[in-house]
């Protein structure tokens, strides 16, 4: 038993600060509060996050779909039975995979971390969004909208970024707003590469330009890099993006 524990400790130490990129079926673990979302890779279980509200930074993966996990192993105790990852990006693979269907019941001793909201109705008003930092902004500014892999969905948090950019451009009467779309490659931990689909950088850029114009911003131009940026297995998630450059 002690030997097994030492082996586990050694493995955990080796794994510390390790970047991981892998595709797996997510696993949902019920608890007495909110469910945990996990994924297994090479015999190890990783904790991705818990069910929260749409305003949260972490948006859980989905059963019936594989998930691309890009994260760094975080030191510290296991959470909900899995090794935590931080920072972490997860992307739901678009094609349906019925094999991804593991929903585990709650078990004594496995608890989700404290959740801002439980599984029932909310007990407190939605937190007012932090006042936009735009009031203190001056001059040329760049706003960045990030995406899940192979996705052009502008998520809740990204809508806020677009709104901030639009508000700032309107406030300063921007002479030009340059939107640039990018797509990227993910270098997997097993050496494989995943490249985002062709045309995605253009789609992302055009969509954001449309949102800005629809928000009353004039002088919006859209451009894109059609070639996927290379992957390094560490910062790939940050390269799936659209930048909005607001020029006075």
């Amino acid at each position, binding site marked *: 038993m002690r030997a097994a524990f030492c082996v586990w400790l050694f493995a955990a130490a080796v794994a510390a600060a390790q970047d991981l990129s892998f595709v797996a079926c997510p696993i*949902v673990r*019920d608890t007495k509060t*909110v*469910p945990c*979302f996990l994924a297994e890779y090479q015999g190890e279980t990783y904790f991705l996050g818990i*069910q929260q*509200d*749409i305003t*949260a930074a972490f*948006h*859980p*993966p*989905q*059963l*019936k*779909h594989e998930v691309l996990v890009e994260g760094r192993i975080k030191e510290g105790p296991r959470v909900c039975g899995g090794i935590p990852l931080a920072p972490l990006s997860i992307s739901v693979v*678009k*094609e*349906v995979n019925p094999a991804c269907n593991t*929903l585990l019941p709650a078990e004594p001793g496995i608890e989700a971390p404290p959740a801002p909201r439980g*599984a*029932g*109705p*909310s*007990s*407190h*008003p*939605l937190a007012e969004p932090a006042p936009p930092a735009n009031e203190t902004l001056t001059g040329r500014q760049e706003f960045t909208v990030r995406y899940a892999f192979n996705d052009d*969905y*502008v*998520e*809740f948090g*990204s*809508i806020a970024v*677009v*709104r901030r950019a639009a508000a700032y451009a309107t406030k300063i009467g921007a002479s030009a707003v340059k939107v640039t779309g990018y797509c990227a490659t993910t270098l997997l931990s097993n050496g494989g590469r995943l490249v985002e*689909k062709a045309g995605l950088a253009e789609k992302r850029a055009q*969509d954001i330009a*449309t*949102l800005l114009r*629809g*928000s009353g911003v004039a002088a919006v131009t859209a451009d894109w890099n059609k070639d996927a940026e290379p992957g390094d297995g560490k910062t790939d998630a940050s390269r799936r993006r659209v930048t909005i450059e607001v020029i006075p």
Partner: protein
Amino acid sequence: MHRLLLAIALPLTLAAQYNANLRSIWIEPGGKERLPAFDLFDNALGKLGVIQASGPVDPAGHPFFTPLGTNGRACVNCHQPGWGMSVSAESLQDRWRSTSGKDPVFAAFDGSNCPALPQDLEKSHSLLLHRGLFRIPLSWPPRNADGSPKPVEFSIEVVSDPTGCNLSPKYGLKSGQPTVSVYRRPRPAANLKYVVAGGQNIVLKTGMLADRDPDTGRPVSMNLMSDAREPSLMTQAMSAIMGHEEAREAPSRQQLDAIVAYESQIYAAQVEHIFAGPVVDPEGPFALGPVALRDRRPGVLGDNDYDPVFGQFKSWKSQDYYRRSIARGADIFMFRQFWLRDTTHINTIGLGNPMKRTCATCHNAQMTGQDLSAGWVDVGTTNYPTWTEPATWSESSELPVFKITCKPEADPHPYLGRVIYTTDPGRALISGRCVDVGSIVMQQFRGLASRAPYFANGSAKDLREVVDYYDRRFDMKLTEAEKYDLVNFLGVL
């Protein structure tokens, strides 16, 4: 157990007696009887209260009550105050019997299964008579406001066409004007300040721009119609007059304004339950009855335990048998957790699949139980295998079945993949997107007892069937007693 059986059987017997003496009023177009500021109408579960907030209404010459097209119909044909500003299958069967099928509500264009059918036969109107469904002919592909075709992510084929309309050389998908016919319930034209509230510039569920009111330029809620195809009450009225009323000339601005003004001041809700008595109770839940609907503020999120969707039912928990049952039903609606899964535009918007939540997560808008966000959701009623019918191929259905095949470059439907069988593609017929196949905008929960059947496809003949569908769909494991309480709760809204 015996007490439970008695509790169920006794109401059924009493309800049957009560039904024999219902007061119902069908308002015909061109009628002259003044509509009072407050009126009561019987329904199977008690009484519906209808308020004209602007005071009594004189229907004579009023465009809501006057045929503006060529088939003799007016708005009121399908939006009857006595039937919750919609119509019920029961009321339509009465009209068929009393008019020998001549009422303009049975107009060939959309009051029959297909205009090509012999119109004097009852069976040609079976979807309207049995399920309250009107034919909704939608041009294919969908078009932008300027008339240009929208890009479409999928192909559509007709697999089964029991009405004959979708394969018709004159009305069908391969006709000179390619058209998809789907069959849907008319939504209640009441409590509309809640339905049109909450428009945001960017739609949370799609990350795309919301439609805009062509008059004001403001973003709209996109919660008005089952497929969100019309942005405002004004455009809906125009579309209904040119379509449902078969007008050859557009109505005047003055007529449209009068229709919108009328619709915007009418509130309808249950005021009395046959066993629980009056539901408007100063010490009880604030949301019940039409006065509350008139007076409350729209656009309030009710998915919380301090200001919930239909108010607090705590005081009813210590009252008579039926009020206790209704209060338990309200608690199930607000607090009973289950695994909400495989539901496009709920699980797909960053909440995860599955998520452990309650009915109020999606039905979150205070007073109506709609979604405060643009509310189209694929709960599964129209898409195989969770569709409401047919169970198997051998079980006949009166609804058409379409096969949707998503193009390789498009994102697939999130839970059904690239080939989807559906009785109504819903929002996808407007957006052209695979992700939207089967998504239908949520309906308001008010005045339910007056306007059966339920779901946009009229598949649930009563509230129990609605509850049963959700129980099956989400494996809620509701007990008989819980279902009974939920039905009682829904019946007082």
